[in-house]
């Protein structure tokens, strides 16, 4: 029997397939090659019509089968309905491995599935591999990023969740003759105890779109006050960067929680990360150390941030930032 790696294809609120799915699909190809050429399949729980609408995207990302469960009640995410649908299909197709994006939705859903199926789930993995015994070896940071652990699972499916941007999507299409397999689930006896009354979309402008930014300029306690952050924002605007912050800066009220980067904030992977007045505590760097290049500005030459930075300047951010703002950069308006 062909082994299957199943990937949960999260549908976002505006009905797109979440980018983390394509990152997982690419990683899963690599795992499949080490697992007797297992099939890489997708689980799509959505309102009617989406499997057909996105078929092309699945064909291009190397998916063999899309298990699609369509129902009007899946229009917006709700734990009970989605868990029931996922569990029913997984019990039937019996995948070896189940991968889920560690998004808000994925982190809400995955532990319900794993507990119901009496299996293990390794959260927020940063590495996935197949070991010599054909098991999923899931590596993740623990103890606030100070220790890495490789975790195995003795039951099936072996489940793992992965944060967006940890893996890369395929650089070129991996074309497979994808087949849609429609599944039916019975939602009649599932009580709907959670009711969504209101949703307020976060207002985004280029300043806080950390997820997609090529360049991030982040500030910490060293920027001291709102003037410091105003300088930071002015510089960010000048070079077309998004603005991030350390937790201390958030706690000081200089930045909002969405701007926080690190263990309890966002994980970002820009081309360039410029840290101003940030010491580089492990809880912060775990969220940004995968940036391609890191530049640090700090008045303490012994700040740990210099240990992970490619370039740096020792000095007062209140002197350096105004100087930098004077230079001309390509994005100058």
């Amino acid at each position, binding site marked *: 029997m062909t082994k299957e790696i199943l990937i949960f294809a999260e549908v976002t609120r505006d009905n797109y397939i979440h980018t983390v799915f394509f990152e997982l699909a690419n990683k899963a190809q690599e795992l499949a090659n080490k697992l007797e050429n297992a099939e890489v399949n997708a689980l799509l729980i959505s309102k009617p019509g989406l499997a057909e609408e996105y078929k092309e995207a699945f064909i291009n990302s190397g998916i063999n089968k899309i298990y699609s469960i369509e129902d009007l009640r899946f229009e917006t995410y709700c734990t009970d309905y989605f868990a029931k649908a996922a569990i029913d299909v997984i019990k039937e197709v019996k995948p070896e491995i189940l991968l889920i994006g560690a998004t808000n939705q994925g982190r809400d859903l995955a532990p319900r599935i794993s507990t119901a199926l009496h299996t293990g789930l390794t959260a927020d993995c940063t590495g996935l591999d197949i070991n010599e015994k054909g098991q999923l070896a899931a590596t993740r940071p623990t103890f606030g990023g100070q220790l890495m652990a*490789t975790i195995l699972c003795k039951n099936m499916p072996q489940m793992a969740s992965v944060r967006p941007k940890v893996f890369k999507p395929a650089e070129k299409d991996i074309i497979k003759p994808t087949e849609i397999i429609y599944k039916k689930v019975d939602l009649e006896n599932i009580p709907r105890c959670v009711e969504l009354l209101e949703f307020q979309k976060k207002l985004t402008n280029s300043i806080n779109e950390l997820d997609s930014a090529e360049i991030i300029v982040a500030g910490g306690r060293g920027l001291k006050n709102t003037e410091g952050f105003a300088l930071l924002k002015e510089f960010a605007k000048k070079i077309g960067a998004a603005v991030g912050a350390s937790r201390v800066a958030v706690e000081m009220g200089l930045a909002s929680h969405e701007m926080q980067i690190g263990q309890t904030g966002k994980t970002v992977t820009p081309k360039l990360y410029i840290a101003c007045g940030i010491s580089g505590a492990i809880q912060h760097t775990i969220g940004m150390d995968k940036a391609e290049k890191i530049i640090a500005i700090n008045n303490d030459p012994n700040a740990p941030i210099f*240990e992970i930075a490619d370039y740096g300047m020792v000095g007062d951010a209140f002197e350096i930032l105004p100087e930098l703002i004077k230079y001309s950069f*390509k994005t100058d308006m």
Partner: protein
Amino acid sequence: MKIVLCVKQVPDTSDIKWTENNTIQREGLESIINPYDVYAIEAALKLKRSYNDIEITALTMGPFQAVDMLKKIIAIGVDNAILLSDKKFAAADTYATGKTIGTAIREQVSNFDLIICGQFAIDGDTAQTGPSIANTLNLPQVTYVQEILNYENNTITVKRELDDGTEIVKVTLPALICVLKDYFEPTRAKINGIIKAQNTEIRTLGFDDLTLNAEDVGLKGSPTYVSKAFRPAPKEVECKLCENCQELAEKIKICGGLND
């Protein structure tokens, strides 16, 4: 309303020391209450301040020393506490933890209405235990709760903070919520709270007090296991320091693709 508050004692991860063999030195490692569980406590205390007839039971599974943490929680206003402690419970993953805690709540806290967990624990940081308890008890769950807005007619209305925006959600009790919050001023213990804590007996339960099989708990009951633990490799970079802003600006241009 009867609230069960799940709290975990965690090692202070900001203060880790290493042994010669690159393992974490566990002796002398300071234990703290998981910071997210402090938010859970605050959420429960806020309900207690706003409504009548609220009884809060704190529950933790862990070594016997966790009694001290529970006493501190009682000192700031929680009514009573349960400690689940047994050698058989040790080394449980989130599946076994969820099952053990869920079973304890079902059997030992009659007619509970609301279970409040933290969103994550900073040692494991899995965010799985809450949903796993909910699943064990077949309860609806709401994760990423930032604030409880209202409680009436056997429902609570909560605000969820998500990556793409804010949701207002109503959930019928009994239910489980996992809380997350930015920043707040934690409640401090008052003198009569401290006296009460000293006089309160912490109910301690072990494996024999619960209807569970030995295969369901601790290491045996855990589907996952650690095959290897290691220190992350330090990034091999040599930081080149710039002498002046001119040089720094050049580096920013090159790295950021901002050359004219």
